[in-house]
């Protein structure tokens, strides 16, 4: 599996390249009415938010609407074999919002594996209510 490793809100994450259509400037994506999610908080980004002004958005493939994931920093494109992908522990998988389908180990670090085409992320984009997206 080839994945884009990025940082969002200080949290290192990886998105399978097969689920990403492209990487665009955040500003451009917002101007084109895309719904961009900050996965570190679970909140949609407003066009006016200065924190993301010069950042990138990973656009999700196959979505009816334009949906993207905010990235503060793009670190690398990495290849992981099947054994490198670990399931999330049951307590985390069951109590979370379903945004992550597992994790990969990068040295001693744990990188969360985003499920860009998973139901939860798409489901969030469908509701469109910013308040309901706040996860913590």
């Amino acid at each position: 599996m080839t994945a884009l490793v990025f940082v969002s809100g200080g949290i290192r994450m990886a998105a399978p390249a097969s689920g990403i259509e492209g990487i665009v400037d955040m500003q451009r994506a917002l101007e084109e009415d895309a719904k961009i999610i900050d996965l570190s908080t679970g909140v949609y980004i407003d066009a006016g938010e200065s924190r993301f002004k010069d950042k990138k958005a990973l656009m999700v493939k196959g979505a009816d609407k334009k949906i993207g994931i905010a990235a503060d920093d793009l670190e690398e494109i990495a290849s992981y074999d099947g054994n490198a992908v670990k399931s999330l522990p049951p307590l985390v998988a069951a109590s979370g919002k379903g945004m992550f389908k597992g994790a990969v180990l990068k040295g001693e670090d744990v990188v969360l594996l985003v499920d860009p085409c998973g139901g939860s992320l798409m489901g969030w984009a469908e509701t469109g209510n910013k308040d309901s997206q706040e996860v913590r």
Partner: protein
Amino acid sequence: MDSEQNKSDIISDSVKKKTGKGQIVDVEEEKIKLVVFVLSGDFYAFYGSDIKEILPHTKIFFVPGTPDYIAGIINVRGDIESVLSINQFLGLPFGDETKGGRIAIAEKNGIRSGVLVDSIEDVIDFPVSSIKPTLPTLDRAKKELVSGETIYKGKNVTIIDIGNVFGRIRF
């Protein structure tokens, strides 16, 4: 006199043999192993049989979208384990997860997770008779998690059944 003393001794020995008096019988009291730890300055304990491993504090990776009591996940020799903060279940303020402490890996009823504690005091056998039931005045939410109390170094130790903590987590 000597023969009377001897007779007396013989009779006394015979009586002792028949009644069993003077025999010392060793009775070992049933004991239970507890892992005593500190949370917010107080002593608590888990049952030793529920604790599989105690780890030094290591980097915890936060998982967005999870409840407050899930501190995050850790890398334990290539496996990923969850880490819980049980402070809120006990009505305690949240600890500073970045500041030292230990992670106790607990497993019960098919559920396994790390649990954050401030420090591990001891792993020790307590006589079962020293474990008292919890006070009826304890608040209901806490009472469901606590299975008893005992004394360690002159201080009260609240014994937590980690299986009840896992059961409290809503799936």
